[in-house]
């Protein structure tokens, strides 16, 4: 049934990655990967270091161009678009290594996002950019630090700032690259709750999370995709993945 619908173009996934391949010299960083994200779906991408998860994010968000394959957003191919245009059609991302604007105060970091065409369009009626930025900071719990220059802000808060900055454009697909990296359990818990709240606030938004901390990830996501050496080796619900033999082999080694 699904195949028939697909041929007629009836089902449309929010984000659809098809046969994506990227080579760096001899290394195949992303090897013929296909998956899709539906509206309101929270997808986790896991895999050992160097499995090509961040490369995949860079391909989707337009920072690098793939050798072959397509990325479709709402049925349109977005390969070849520059990164800022991809953000403006509704795919926002965060970075694994925090990239704050160090000279700017925390609130101005969010205002930069609101200066983009999409961010500007998404400001509610009768709201100033400052007010909207403040609301975004409230969502991730950074209101107390709003006037602090970003260079004085700690790593855990910068991770949350990254998310506030991505959320300010109100993306349809949110790509989070290791949001819990380098956070202590308390901060992880807090950020996890913010992600869940973000998900509840906008039920049609698709969220893709790359993460190593499986205990945090498995509680948020409904679908998990496992990568190994650039290739997709498993896909399913968290329970299925936890029992999958291939995945256990990749993580624990063969018996």
């Amino acid at each position: 049934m699904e195949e028939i619908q697909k041929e007629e173009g009836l089902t449309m996934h929010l984000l659809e990655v098809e046969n994506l391949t990227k080579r760096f010299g001899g290394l195949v960083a992303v090897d013929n990967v296909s998956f899709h994200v539906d509206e309101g779906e929270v997808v986790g991408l896991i895999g050992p270091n160097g499995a090509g998860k961040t490369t995949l994010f860079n391909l989707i968000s337009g920072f690098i161009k793939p050798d072959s394959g397509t990325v479709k957003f709402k049925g349109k191919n977005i390969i070849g678009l520059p990164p800022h245009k991809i953000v403006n059609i509704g795919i926002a991302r965060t970075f694994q290594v925090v990239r704050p604007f160090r000279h700017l105060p925390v609130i101005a970091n969010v205002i930069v996002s609101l200066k983009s065409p999409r961010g500007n369009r998404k400001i509610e009626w009768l709201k100033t950019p400052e007010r909207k930025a403040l609301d975004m900071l409230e969502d991730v719990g950074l209101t107390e630090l709003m006037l602090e220059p970003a260079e004085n802000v700690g790593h855990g808060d910068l991770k949350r700032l990254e998310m506030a900055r991505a959320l300010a454009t109100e993306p349809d697909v949110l790509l989070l690259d290791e949001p819990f990296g380098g956070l202590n359990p308390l901060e992880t818990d807090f950020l996890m709750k913010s992600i869940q709240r973000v998900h509840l606030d906008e039920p049609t938004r698709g969220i893709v999370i790359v993460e190593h901390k499986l205990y945090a990830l498995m509680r948020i996501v409904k679908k998990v995709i496992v990568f190994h050496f650039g290739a997709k080796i498993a896909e399913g619900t968290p329970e299925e993945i936890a029992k999958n033999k291939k995945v256990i082999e990749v993580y624990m080694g063969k018996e």
Partner: protein
Amino acid sequence: MVATYLRRAYTSFLAHVVDIPPRLLALLLFLILLVFPVTNPKFSFMLLLSLANLSAIFSASWDLQVGRTGLMSLGHALFFGIGGYGAAMLIVFWGFPAWAAIASSALIGALVALAIGYPCLRVKGPYLSLVTMALPLIATGVVFYFKDVTGGERGLFGFPRLFPFLPYAQQFLAEYYFTLLLLFACGIALYKTANSGTGIVFISILDDEVASKACGINTTRYKLTSFSISAFFATLAGAVWVHLLSAANISLLTLTTSFLPIIATIWGGIGTIYGPIAAAYILQIVDRYVLNEVFPIETHWHMIIFLVVVIIVIIFWGRGLARFVTDKLDDLTEERNLDERGPHIWKKYKKKKA
């Protein structure tokens, strides 16, 4: 009606200028410059101050581009030269009136910046510096090649002054006030731009261009904007400059001219906009008055002295003159605020610390 408006303007003036000590200081300095001619100085000194006004605009424009956007250009003299030669050629060959020539050459400068910026801003960091450094050299070659139009080594001269209808004695005074008001207007325009929403985006490009793109910012467009705003003000300064000296020659395009805003910006504090204005003033007065008349030193030594001071400033005082002054003023106001709040414990603590 009028009274309400005036009262509102007055309260806004109090809140935005008088209550902020660095701005109050800037206003006082401006007022001092405004009443300075009552001391009846020599014509040559008035001309010097007029040139200082223009070089302050030139330096502040470089600071918007480099200190705020991170487009490290070492060839800002290109736009100074375009302003100078553009205004001169418009007057000599097309018979433009002086005002129209200045305005249109400033617009030409901004358009040239757009045309040059599109290919040049694709390269980043040190490569951008090298590319922009080559541009005035190319312009110099062009000037020497088209000798009939540009006057070659002799340059263009013999065009009327800005205020030809005034008697000779008052012309320098009028030019001084014109350039001072121009500096005031351009300084405020540049400072406002740097601190507006667009200015925030400029700083985001300076800090992290990749993250700026990930925020949905079309960085190319903003870099071009910064480049051409900066070029507009530099060209404007260059166009008025040739009117003050009544000559447009190749010295407008030299490396020395390119280094003038760099030295001023590093002395004054990069990225502050007001710092380079103050430093350019001091630089011009030291260069053309102190080292020329008070302690005469041969001209070749001036640049050496300035650059040695730049090296010392970079190593020991990287934040610059303006930030030093504003920090001191902030310390003063902090004490004042503590006094107002009235916790005497703080006062004791401060004294102990000292």
